[in-house]
């Protein structure tokens, strides 16, 4: 018999509805404008680790509403937020569904610290953490692996990663990713909101970079973890169009080296950056993960009415 039923209990549907209501009230109170941007657009992203789903004749399903929201910001929208469905090819598992719900917002004039405070204010009543802990990426990585992610050699990192079952032939960024996902993240306290900032410079994507106290380049980027899940990823947004164009170009070269399809840089985003993006910080929060952390559910498919294999 064809299995037409949803995968979730009605109670899980109600939890999602109440999460959406909480978010809407939160931003209404803070006078942030709710917006809608396209899910389907001509360009995807150049990021090496995000594969967009192509819709022949139209372009790509968006992996994040970031580019369109930045075009709104450049046009003078002021603070904006939205919840959108985003799409990433091949991301399916206990913590991933190829289509998922993303809350994303941008705050012109906010420093990264102010945005982190706002994230904590939004998430705390939902997740009721015992405490909020803040780490620099370097410190938390060193604490759990014994290695400095910025200065350790690739061979030291490889040795440590292979103890944990990593595949061979990983470059330094991939080794750090592996250790972060398999050693550091599982060791973070489950009952706290853990904010990790100052990511390695190579992981800047669309964030500004700065030099830390040792003169190492770090990204002005943070992530928030709770209950063993990565929930939020925020940037002090890069506003320099030339630097952004150079990063897109570098991404395209990396894609070519890895045998991935070429993705052209989005000229409309670059034109908006040239026009001028206000100094701002922005963050994206995976709402399915928030529900997982809130309800202590270990599989995203238990919280989606129709996960990809039933959709």
């Amino acid at each position, binding site marked *: 018999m064809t299995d037409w039923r949803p995968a979730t209990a009605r109670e899980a549907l109600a939890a999602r509805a109440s999460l959406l209501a909480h978010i809407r009230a939160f931003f209404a109170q803070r006078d942030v404008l709710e917006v809608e941007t396209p899910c389907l657009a001509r360009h995807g992203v150049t990021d090496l680790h995000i594969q967009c789903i192509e819709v022949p004749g139209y372009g790509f399903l968006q992996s994040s509403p970031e580019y369109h929201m930045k075009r709104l910001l450049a046009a003078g929208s002021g603070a904006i937020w939205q919840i959108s469905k985003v799409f990433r090819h091949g991301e399916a598992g206990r913590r991933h569904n190829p289509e998922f719900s993303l809350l994303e917002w941008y705050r012109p004039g906010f420093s990264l610290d102010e945005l982190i405070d706002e994230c904590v204010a939004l998430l705390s009543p939902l997740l009721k953490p015992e405490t909020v802990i803040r780490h620099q990426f370097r410190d938390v990585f060193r604490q759990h692996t014994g290695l400095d992610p910025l200065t350790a050699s690739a061979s030291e990192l490889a040795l440590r990663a292979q103890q944990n079952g990593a595949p061979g032939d990983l470059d330094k960024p991939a080794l750090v990713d*592996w250790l972060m*996902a398999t050693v550091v993240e599982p060791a973070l306290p489950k009952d706290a909101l853990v904010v990790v900032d100052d990511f390695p410079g190579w992981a800047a994507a669309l964030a500004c970079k700065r030099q830390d106290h040792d003169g190492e380049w770090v990204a002005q980027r943070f992530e928030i973890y709770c209950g063993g899940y990565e929930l939020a990823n925020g940037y002090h947004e890069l506003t320099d169009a030339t630097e952004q164009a150079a990063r897109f170009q570098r991404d395209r070269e990396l894609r070519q080296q890895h045998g*991935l399809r070429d993705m052209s840089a989005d000229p409309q985003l670059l034109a908006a950056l040239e026009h001028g993006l206000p100094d701002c910080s922005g963050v994206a929060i995976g709402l399915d993960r928030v529900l997982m952390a809130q309800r202590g559910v270990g599989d995203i498919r238990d919280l989606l009415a129709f996960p990809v294999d039933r959709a």
Partner: protein
Amino acid sequence: MANYSTNDFKPGLKVMLDGDPCAILENEYVKPGKGQAFNRVRLRNLKNGKVWERTFRSGDSLEGADVVDQEMQFLYSDGEFWHFMHPTSFEQLAAGEAAVADAAKWLKEEDSCQVTLWNGVPLMVYPPNFVELEIIETDPGVKGDTAGSGGKPAKLTTGAVVRVPLFVQTGEIVKVDTRSGEYVGRIKD
């Protein structure tokens, strides 16, 4: 054979790993932040039954393994090989001791078995879930025992030894579950 990428690694898919055919048992997707994604995969080596755990970069691929399950009729054993026949093509194949392994003690001539073939060669032989075999040796039964409390060992024509109730006698045919090796009942003519 086709190549399969980590996206295609569904339980049951047969792939080649380190030169051995394997079946995917579980595939877990791991992705840190915005970085490199990995797949942690559990596979069963179909040659020796061992379970392997391996990690791949997402998007890596493995060659498919030409592994099929085929119903075949057991013909006879010559002591070194066990001979099977395809039910429609009547083609005959010989399976060695490694492939037959524990199934040997349940194989009765003319019974139908599942044979896993790799590149056309028998890799593993599965006996039917239930077999009916004659008892060739067991202690004389005790009159009046019908509950089967405790039971006694009985040797079957194929050499297997199973526990049967005390009232079951040499020469009788019994039905046995090959998955548990347990007696199910007597077959009366």
